[in-house]
């Protein structure tokens, strides 16, 4: 609704253009970090599409992401289907599941919703592990493709760009305005005529779709897939932390958080592999106490203060 919207889009397009060239200037270690970063950019931005305006904190990212990775493994390993089949199917399955979960749970508010999504992700992980071990034979799932890191990077960049474009369109639409009103006061939202349940379900479904798509794209990187690995609850928390670090209130907020956090996280994992969870907890505390509105919120605050100083 702001006139500056087109400028934002132009900057984003330019950044995407620059990002396309990353695999040409680097390879090996830094390219693999770039792949991880791009994965989290797509995940955190799509997470914030729903959770940013509505303040419904979802910890189900890991579940949808896992569906993507697991279906790639299962379809390629057990059914010898080409990679593109699960790439199309997995996001649709996850979207369908997110839709059903949304209808069932978005009546829950606040902490109940958070706990439910966490429990749900764990349930899906255990259920699929159990099915895999008892019925499909406990053999591993191999994902063997010709895709290299730079292919994955470009695919993830494409997804991230699509998420941005979608977020930009939603922000300027009635739906985006409705979500901001819902985040402020759901009772008022209903009384001005907003179908709050639909607005939330649509966005939650979108988030599930993209998380599974990212999970499917990244699967070839692992070669060998097991449910406990792809349905990682840590991933759900990482996505939330990165989005909050950047600031979930703005479309480009998560991006600002993901880049530094991924690099620091890589470093911590290498230096202190056994203490990484501790670091995660500390990061979470710091963000909540020091940057409640994220880095973007802090930047805007400073900007406003400078503006006042000048006038």
């Amino acid at each position, binding site marked *: 609704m702001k006139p500056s919207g087109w400028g934002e889009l132009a900057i984003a397009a330019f950044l995407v253009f620059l990002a396309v060239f990353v695999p040409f200037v680097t390879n090996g270690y830094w390219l693999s970090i770039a792949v991880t970063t791009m994965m989290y950019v797509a995940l955190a931005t799509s997470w914030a599409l729903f959770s940013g305006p509505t303040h419904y904190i979802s910890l189900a990212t890991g579940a949808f992401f896992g569906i993507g990775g697991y279906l790639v493994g299962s379809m390629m390993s057990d059914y010898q289907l080409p990679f593109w089949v699960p790439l199309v199917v997995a996001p649709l399955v996850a979207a369908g599941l997110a839709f059903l979960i949304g209808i069932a749970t978005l009546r829950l508010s606040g902490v109940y919703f958070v706990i439910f999504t966490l429990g749900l992700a764990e349930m899906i992980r255990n259920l699929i592990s159990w099915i895999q071990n008892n019925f499909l034979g406990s053999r591993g799932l191999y994902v063997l493709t010709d895709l290299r890191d730079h292919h994955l990077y470009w695919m993830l960049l494409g997804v991230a760009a699509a998420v941005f474009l979608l977020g930009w369109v939603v922000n300027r639409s009635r739906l985006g*305005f409705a979500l901001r009103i819902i985040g402020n006061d759901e009772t008022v939202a209903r*009384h001005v*005529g907003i179908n709050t349940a639909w607005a939330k379900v649509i966005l939650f479904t979108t988030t599930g779709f993209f998380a599974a798509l990212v999970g499917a794209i990244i699967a070839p990187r692992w070669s060998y897939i097991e449910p406990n690995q792809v349905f990682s609850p840590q991933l759900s928390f990482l996505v939330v932390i990165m989005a909050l670090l950047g600031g979930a209130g703005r479309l480009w907020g998560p991006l600002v958080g993901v880049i530094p956090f991924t690099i620091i996280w890589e470093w911590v994992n290498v230096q202190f592999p056994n203490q990484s969870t501790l670091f995660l907890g500390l990061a979470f505390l710091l963000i909540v106490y020091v940057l409640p509105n994220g880095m973007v919120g802090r930047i805007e605050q400073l900007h406003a203060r400078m503006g006042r100083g000048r006038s």
Partner: protein
Amino acid sequence: MSNRPILSVNGVTKRFGGLVAVSDMSFDVGNHEMVGVIGPNGSGKTTMMNLISGALKPTSGRISMKGRRLSDLPAQKIAREGVGRTFQLVRLLPTLSVLENVMAGAVFGHRRRWGRDAEDFAHEMLERVGLDAMSHAPVSSLTYINQKRVELARVLAGEPKVLLLDEWLAGLNPTELETGIDLIHALRDEGRTVVLVEHVMDAIRSLCDRCVVMSSGAKIAEGTPDDVLSDREVIRAYLGDDDA
């Protein structure tokens, strides 16, 4: 009542477990009429408002507007049918600007305006309540009466056929009260259909065509403000047996 009712409440009861908050209420509201719902604290007035706006579902009975049944619909559908309300404790959208708060009413109301159209209309409504100069202020900077004005502008932006004002004048100081009463008077002069819950008796006398008096969830009187306010049972409900 001089014309066909636009809003009808028929035998509406609301129970919360064993507590009957509203019991077998019936009344009509005519087109362009201003009807007051009054009664002592805890008599079920706000519950009645919540039942009309869809915040609560009646346990039994029927609420309809122009013959269309409202009481089965969710709140957002009732709003789109043309019932707008303010809240007893003013509810604004704190992270949105004043203008956006009002646009919320225009965008999702039954006319569903968007873009420039919604913005212009929101400005018009803010001007209508005397607040257009503050349209880009954050809502946290507003005084209480100005918050109430924003809420009223938001409701008006939805172009409601029936306006529900739940103690819109409560909590205002004497000067603000005068401004507030003038504002509602102006709504009346525009020929709007309004149901208002109110405690300020002066306002009721000067604003309402008719009053419905509630006590312990039930209707105990109905008529012109002067008639009901001198009714023995109404006085007893307000003041107790000894004074009647």
